């Protein structure tokens, strides 16, 4: 697998050759050989201890169920997984080539570290978390600033701010939604009539996002399967009963949370109360009710926040949570032992989000192959083989746009490229069909999605018709058919072709020149982009 001088030469040729004319200026699209950002050395040690204990837990489970785990996945497959899970896109050819400069055994860890410090990753994770925190609605005009909120979250993630501090701001911050972006957590629920944040929606949101409990249905009645009572829901909602919104932003006055009963009759003011572990709730009446609630939520003796966060981060990495649904963990009974282990480590580490991601991504189970001849659904259920899950629209959009370029698309790209990518991706996601808040929908894809991928202009522009599509560059720059096919596979599927594939597609290109050759390479891109392998995580 070692990179040959010839490969390097090929990359250098592309770097030199792939230039784009924008607004009359020639700009190099590939900076790789000129100014490579060295893949970060492993600065922050991988949390070995927790990884070993999680590994041992899964080994025990597999042994007791008589399941043999799959082999370790090829390193490029893990690299692709990491890019999709943490950046919402696939690695560029530029990045793959650079990784190949490193010794084989260090590539995955180096890649993980690089991604964890990449703005693209912070932006992508912020978007994913934002869905959990403020939903997907546009929210009230002017008083809800989604972009401000996501940027704030992205900055916090990039700085690896402790997650409990982020959560505390979300629940308890005061002020204007522009200067204090965390307050958008409240303003998104502002009711048009009362012009105040809605305590019920905030209680339901808090329960799901921070406690891993779906209290929503306890809003109207006691929970049918779980021990949640309507009174507990109202108690939680009452923490937001003092919150108002005026020209100075979100602030708290007297609690006057008075829910109405089913007949529309207003009940007396409800006092704030937590649904469990009441002994952890600070009694000090000096603090605002929201500050007290925040204290209680982030208290390390209250494991709820750590558990639900671990389950969600696991789901982001695997495409499937450890416990389903992702935001409704059992109130009592067995939790997956790996979830408990990781949750304890997460809170003990001071809610270090980066450490948590690093730990999960370093486990044996994350690095298993998705292929294994004997693997059936029971293997997938026990995580003995890497699950095959449908990629989210954003991930497919990110991947489609990345296939259109040989260099890395990201914050360092030219503004015009970023502009095209940003708008194009949004347009793509709209047409592909956003899954809304239902983050981990396991069901099959749709006909419009396939039509979009087969015939859509967005895809066509990337592979053939647009400005400087990757296929034309390959046609121009690849020294021979074999290298063209190999590069196309690396660009689109992050792997090399099998011998059968190589033979087949080299045959397709044989003897072609000029536009005909460009078309044939575009056809190859089309085929790879329309494969199951491209649209599903594996």
């Amino acid at each position, binding site marked *: 697998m070692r990179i040959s001088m010839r490969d390097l030469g090929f990359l250098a040729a592309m770097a030199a050759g792939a230039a784009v004319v924008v607004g009359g200026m020639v700009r190099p699209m590939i900076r790789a050989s000129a100014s490579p950002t060295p893949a970060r050395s492993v600065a922050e040690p991988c949390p070995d201890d927790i990884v070993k204990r999680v590994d041992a837990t899964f080994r025990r489970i597999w042994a007791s169920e008589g399941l043999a785990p799959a082999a370790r996945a090829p390193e490029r497959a893990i690299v692709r997984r990491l890019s999709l899970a943490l950046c919402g896109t696939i690695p560029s050819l530029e990045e793959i080539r650079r990784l190949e400069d490193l010794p084989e055994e260090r590539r995955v860890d180096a890649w993980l570290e690089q991604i964890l410090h990449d703005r693209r990753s912070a932006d992508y994770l912020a978007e994913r978390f934002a869905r959990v925190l403020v939903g997907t609605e546009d929210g009230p005009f002017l008083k809800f600033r989604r972009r401000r909120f996501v940027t704030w979250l992205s900055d916090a993630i990039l700085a690896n701010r402790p997650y409990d501090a982020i959560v505390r701001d979300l629940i308890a911050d005061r002020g204007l939604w522009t200067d204090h972006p965390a307050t958008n957590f409240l303003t998104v629920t502002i009711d048009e009539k009362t012009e105040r944040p809605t305590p019920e929606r905030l209680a339901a949101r808090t329960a799901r996002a921070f406690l891993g409990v*779906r209290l929503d249905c306890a809003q109207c009645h006691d929970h049918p399967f779980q021990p949640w009572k309507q009174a507990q829901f109202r108690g939680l909602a009452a923490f937001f009963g003092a919150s108002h919104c005026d020209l100075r932003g979100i602030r708290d006055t007297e609690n006057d949370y008075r829910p109405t009963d089913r007949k529309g009759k207003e009940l007396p003011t409800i006092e704030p109360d937590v649904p469990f572990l009441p002994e952890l709730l600070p009694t000090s009446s000096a603090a605002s009710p929201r500050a007290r609630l925040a204290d209680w939520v982030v208290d390390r003796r209250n494991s709820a926040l750590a558990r639900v966060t671990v389950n969600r981060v696991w789901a982001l990495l695997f495409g499937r949570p450890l416990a389903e649904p992702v935001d409704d963990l059992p109130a009592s009974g067995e939790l997956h032992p790996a979830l408990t282990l990781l949750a304890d480590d997460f809170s003990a580490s001071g809610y270090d989000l980066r450490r948590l991601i690093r730990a999960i991504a370093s486990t044996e189970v994350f690095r298993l192959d998705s292929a294994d001849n004997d693997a059936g659904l029971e293997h997938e259920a026990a995580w003995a083989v890497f699950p*095959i899950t449908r990629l989210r629209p954003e991930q497919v959009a990110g991947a489609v746009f990345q296939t259109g370029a040989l260099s890395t698309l990201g914050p360092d790209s030219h503004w015009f490229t970023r502009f095209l990518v940003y708008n194009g991706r949004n347009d793509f996601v709209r047409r592909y069909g956003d899954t809304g808040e239902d983050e981990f929908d396991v069901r099959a894809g*749709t006909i*419009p999605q396939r*039509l979009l991928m087969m015939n859509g202009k967005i895809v066509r522009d990337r592979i053939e018709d647009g400005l400087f599509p990757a296929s034309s560059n390959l046609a121009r720059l690849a020294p021979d058919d074999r290298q063209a096919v190999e590069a196309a596979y690396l660009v689109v599927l992050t792997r090399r072709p099998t011998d059968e594939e190589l033979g087949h597609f080299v045959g397709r290109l044989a003897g072609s020149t000029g536009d005909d050759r460009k078309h044939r390479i575009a056809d190859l891109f089309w085929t790879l982009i*329309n494969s199951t392998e491209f649209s599903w995580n*594996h």
Partner: protein
Amino acid sequence: MPRTAFPTIDRRGFLALASTGWLTPISRLLADQAESNRRPAQSIILLWLDGGPSQLETFDPHPDTRIAGGTRAIQTAARGIQLAQGYEQLADQMGQVALIRSMVSKEGDHERGTYLMKTGYRPDPTVEYASIGAICCHELPVGQTDIPRHISILSGRWPSRGGYLGAEYDAFQVGDPRGELPDVVSTISADRQKARVADLEVVERAFGRGRLGRVTATHHRETIARARTMMTSEQLRAFDVSREPAEVRGEYGETPFGRGCLAARRLIEVGVRCVEVTLGGWDTHVNNHAIHATRAKELDPAFAALLRDLARRELLDRTVVLCGGEFGRTPKINPLGGRDHWPGGFSLAIAGGGLRGGQAIGETDPEGIKEPARPMTIEDVHATILTVLGLDPARENTAPATGRPIKLSAGRPIRDLLG
């Protein structure tokens, strides 16, 4: 109102008698027969007025009151029912149309209101509810339809979704029927297409190695095959309104919305279950009256032509036409001559599907102060529509992951509408 089956027997009369329980056996038999011969409706056309139209300038005028702000009313074919000026063509069709003038909801935000009106449920972050079109596609047989059975023409910001039923029930979004269908036509030669698809086999074989069962379970290739069937389906011609005679096109109006309504009729003829056609521009916080006058010029001819055309083709009884937006607008006119959001008493128009037309249900206060008389909810409207489609609103589907049972509609059919 014309009926396609058993025109001589008044089903409603028979049912009323039957429920009293003293029918003779022979008349009971006749009543049963009338019931079973009445074919249920099979499609829905939703004329979605995106932005929230003013009830006062459309279906619920209060002429010569303070809240009218000068809007005048016109007489219609239905005695005692007036429409706002600008709906002269629809006025002639009022015998077929029922107005619900006392719609109330708790959602005054565009997105949340749209969600409520289209799904019949308020937004709930723990479950994505399905729009009524998706439910209709899920519950009713597929038949011989190759093209998507749920279609959104000129989709607004929030087209109808499949929700918990799955993304395959999302409305397929298309633009002005005059233009090209998005993504459906391949721009490359048939030979190249064939080669591409053949090559896909090679890549699929490599990926399937060691994963075959689980890759098959993704249904990816099956979905591609179905998409390719659709690409070559003759039913796609239903989108092509240029195949209609010029006078028919003229009747609907040569506007995107008019063409959308005409395409909707063509689509239900090939078995599409639900077509949503969006007309935007109703969010009149400023200059309400002038803007509503321009909207009426598009809505009135298209809506009226659709009803006439469906009736001519004996399709009206088998098609429910629903027209409305996410809420109404304030009786009070603001300083900018606009009206603001008003979920507390607004109008919907409903026709076809064997529903009883020529009536207005509910009433709003001419002063714009008191709550409307006989308040109606969208849940009940959905339950009514499902009932005429032959579906039991109380039937439950199960949401994936949570296993939560969800009724097709939480409401109850509106008796006065059932014909």
